[in-house]
């Protein structure tokens, strides 16, 4: 193609959307077509190459603190052969970013980044045809024009051997702002004339609003009540006034008692109404084989309901106007929110713009979408822009939760201590198509979808080790006590806890060292690699568990766990060393070593940061986290009743990364989550001889000598 043809489309020359300033992301109601392409088949939807040679990336994938922003910048800069500092990223703005999926399931890099790389590679080919020279200004070559090209799935990619940007620990651009109070979070966004809103959630789930005594907040300046059926909110020009009004407003609600309570939740789960059973792994006949195996075991593992427990409660700003509605949100799916809200609130999609702004970290889908619906309802009611931030207790009580999981495993070893039979039964909420219901939309009596989903929860229920007969059966349940959502490594976090604990139980029953037992069941060299290295890093001493040595009242032990995430992605091995105080039962995690192989590494420091956070967050989930509730409401509503990992508990942590430059990059937000709880339970068993099968993992003290 000649340059002239290349820059021409039909008869009109398309001018580049040369300066991003044209797209104000803070001005409300710019909802109409802004003239920027957003079709994900077009290169121009993803990339703008400006005359000065700088590049803007547009993507629907958002960085919720994961370092995605720098990683995708590196991938694009690499293909375009420009310095990464020349790249800026605009995320999750439905008016100007193409929709190539929301953020979740660790897809930011393997899917989002790979698509951006493809767009950049397509652009690169076009630029080469225009005579691009190494180091020359690619923007000057285009002269402010758009590329007007379809993304070419076969555009040649750079050879990873020649990479100079991908694979480097380049510092994240957001960190200096975050460390100096300059980063703008959705919590910081404000508009002229904006009111602060608070939602008053009922004291029991599903309660009806009986009476509101507006005179009870008469003295609070500017405070005003908004009531839509059972939805109740207050707005005020002043945030503190809104907050006080929300606390002081006298309200009468009905008392609902529809919950089972968190005591004995596992029994409730197993006895809840089933939808159907599904056998998802079926090899040989474990039920028939089991009775004739040499050693047989069975065990029940329980994972409680857990909260995202974002450090900053969910927040959104909405501005509903006749010309169009704008929502600023830290949602992980701005396009999904637009589609859903458009249907729920009857606002045409082209009159609804959702703009992502940074928020407090969320790990799958916290209350941000709910807060956005709150803000929209309040703004629509009062005719002004409204900011809603949830209170701490709103977040802990009303964020959608990681659902409870129960797993029962039976297995048997043959005479050579190989796994001859393995059968996993798991109880999970069934999937119901459609968006998760929003709390305030139900309360306001507005029709909405009532989907039920919490991610791909059934994976990793089978052992990754050689086994002759294996069956995994999922018992899908009609419902689950609290509104579910995806929470970091959904399903897998509990499945790997169960599978890797049970593996350890088998190894102990066989009197074989836990690492040796695992290695014996694996042939994949990548699996062997991570396991051997993690064992080396912690100084693994081969012997059967439990440990017989004690040191006065302090019992020490080490545990191991391995997983290949989703049985198809990252390889992760974790070794852990614990000390247990026999008199108090307190578990003190001393050291953790992790080896992670996730294919091509885009940014090793960003990757390491994700893995470190993932491991330590999960350590807290395994040690402390359990959402408590009675018959009517969640009772663990602050950091005292729902503790997470605290600073003094932080062990020494050593992470080793294996780079596979010739393989595709995998996501890393979740994989290292999966083996943490089992490594911990196995270490506790090694130290004490006590097998913990219930999260949060706690020992009854004092321990027997």
């Amino acid at each position: 193609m000649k340059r002239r043809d290349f820059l021409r489309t039909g008869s009109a020359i398309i001018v580049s959307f040369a300066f991003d300033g044209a797209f104000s992301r803070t001005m409300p109601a710019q909802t109409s077509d802004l003239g920027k392409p957003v079709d994900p088949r077009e290169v121009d939807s993803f990339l703008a190459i400006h005359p000065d040679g700088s590049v803007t990336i547009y993507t629907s994938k958002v960085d919720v603190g994961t370092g995605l922003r720098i990683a995708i910048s590196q991938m694009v800069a690499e293909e375009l052969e420009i310095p990464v500092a020349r790249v800026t990223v605009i995320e999750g703005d439905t008016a100007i970013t193409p929709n190539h999926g929301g953020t979740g399931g660790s897809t930011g890099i393997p899917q989002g980044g790979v698509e951006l790389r493809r767009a950049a590679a397509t652009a690169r080919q076009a630029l080469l045809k225009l005579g691009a020279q190494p180091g020359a200004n690619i923007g000057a070559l285009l002269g402010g024009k758009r590329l007007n090209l379809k993304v070419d799935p076969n555009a040649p990619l750079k050879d990873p051997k020649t990479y100079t940007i991908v694979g480097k620990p380049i510092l994240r651009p957001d960190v200096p702002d975050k460390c100096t109070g300059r980063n703008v979070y959705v919590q910081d966004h404000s508009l002229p004339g904006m009111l602060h809103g608070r939602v008053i959630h009922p004291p029991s789930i599903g309660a009806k609003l009986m009476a509101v005594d507006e005179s009870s907040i008469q003295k609070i300046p500017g405070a005003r009540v908004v009531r839509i059926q059972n939805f109740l909110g207050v707005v005020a020009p002043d945030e503190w006034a809104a907050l006080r009004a929300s606390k002081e407003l006298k309200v009468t609600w009905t008392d609902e008692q529809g919950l089972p309570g968190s005591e004995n939740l596992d029994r409730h789960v197993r006895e809840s109404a089933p939808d159907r059973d599904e056998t998802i792994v079926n090899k040989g006949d474990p039920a028939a084989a089991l009775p004739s195996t040499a050693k047989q075991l069975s065990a029940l593992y329980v994972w409680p309901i857990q909260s995202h427990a974002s450090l900053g409660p969910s927040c959104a700003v909405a501005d509903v106007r006749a010309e169009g509605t704008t929502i600023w949100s830290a949602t992980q799916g701005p396009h999904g929110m637009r589609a859903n809200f458009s249907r729920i609130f009857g606002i045409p999609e082209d009159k609804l713009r959702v703009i992502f702004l940074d928020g407090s970290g969320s790990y799958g889908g916290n209350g941000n979408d709910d807060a956005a619906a709150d803000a929209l309802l309040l703004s629509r009611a009062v005719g002004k822009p409204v900011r809603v931030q949830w209170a701490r207790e709103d977040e802990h009580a009303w964020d959608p939760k990681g659902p409870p999981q129960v797993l029962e495993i039976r297995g048997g070893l043959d005479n050579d201590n190989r796994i001859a039979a393995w059968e996993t039964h798991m109880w999970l909420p069934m999937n119901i198509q459609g968006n998760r219901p929003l709390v305030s939309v139900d309360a306001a009596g507005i029709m909405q979808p009532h989907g039920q989903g919490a991610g791909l929860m059934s994976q990793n229920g089978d052992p990754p080790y050689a086994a002759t007969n294996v069956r995994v059966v999922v018992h899908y349940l009609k419902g689950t006590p609290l509104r579910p959502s995806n929470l970091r490594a959904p399903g897998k976090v509990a499945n790997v806890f169960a599978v890797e604990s049970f593996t350890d139980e088998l190894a102990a029953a066989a009197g074989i060292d836990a690492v040796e037992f695992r290695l014996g069941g694996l042939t994949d060299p990548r699996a062997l690699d991570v396991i051997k290295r993690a064992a080396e890093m912690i100084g693994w001493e081969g012997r059967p568990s439990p440990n017989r040595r004690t040191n006065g009242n302090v019992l020490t032990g080490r545990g191991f766990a391995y997983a290949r995430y989703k049985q198809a992605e990252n390889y992760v091995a974790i070794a852990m060393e614990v000390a247990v105080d026999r008199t108090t039962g307190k578990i003190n995690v001393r050291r953790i070593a992790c080896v992670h192989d996730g294919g091509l590494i885009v940014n090793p420091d960003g990757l390491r940061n994700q893995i470190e956070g993932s491991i330590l967050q999960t350590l807290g989930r395994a040690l402390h986290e359990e959402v408590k509730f009675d018959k009517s409401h969640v009772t663990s509503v602050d950091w005292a009743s729902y503790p997470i990992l605290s600073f003094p508990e932080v062990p020494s942590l050593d992470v080793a990364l294996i780079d596979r430059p010739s393989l595709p990059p995998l996501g890393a937000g979740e994989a290292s989550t999966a083996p943490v709880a089992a490594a911990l339970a196995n270490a506790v068993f090694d130290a004490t001889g006590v097998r913990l099968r219930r999260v949060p993992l706690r020992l009854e003290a004092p321990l027997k000598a």
Partner: protein
Amino acid sequence: MPNFKLRVNGRATTVESWDPAQPLLYVLRNSLGLHGPKFGCGLGQCGACTVLIDGKATRSCITSVKQAQGHAITTIEGLGSPEKPDPVQAAFIAEQAAQCGYCTNGMIMTAKSFLRQTPHPTAAQVKQGLGRNLCRCATYTRILAAVLRAAKV
């Protein structure tokens, strides 16, 4: 409306608050546009709202504007800027000690005050010194490294 005289980041200022019990946090964020301190819990449990009052790390969500009157208040904006970060901020940047960064304000402000009292801490002392600040992204090992790095300079 009652007026309160504050000294924030070295400058004298007067703010209005209809309620003397209004926590300093909201005054800083909404009246003075200082968004560094964050609302995390409003209960004094997480540390996201930490500022320095007379050099001491203080939770602005449970400190009223009235109590803050007459004291020297420093917010994270008053320490340094992305171009000219103060040594603790620079150490956090060097260690990339943030994920979402929502806790970072509290971690840095608490570290500031902690290092004044304990200029040469051990790792265990840092963990205790910042022991009441929560990070949900669990960026703890980096925060620890950053505080130890800041202590060295």
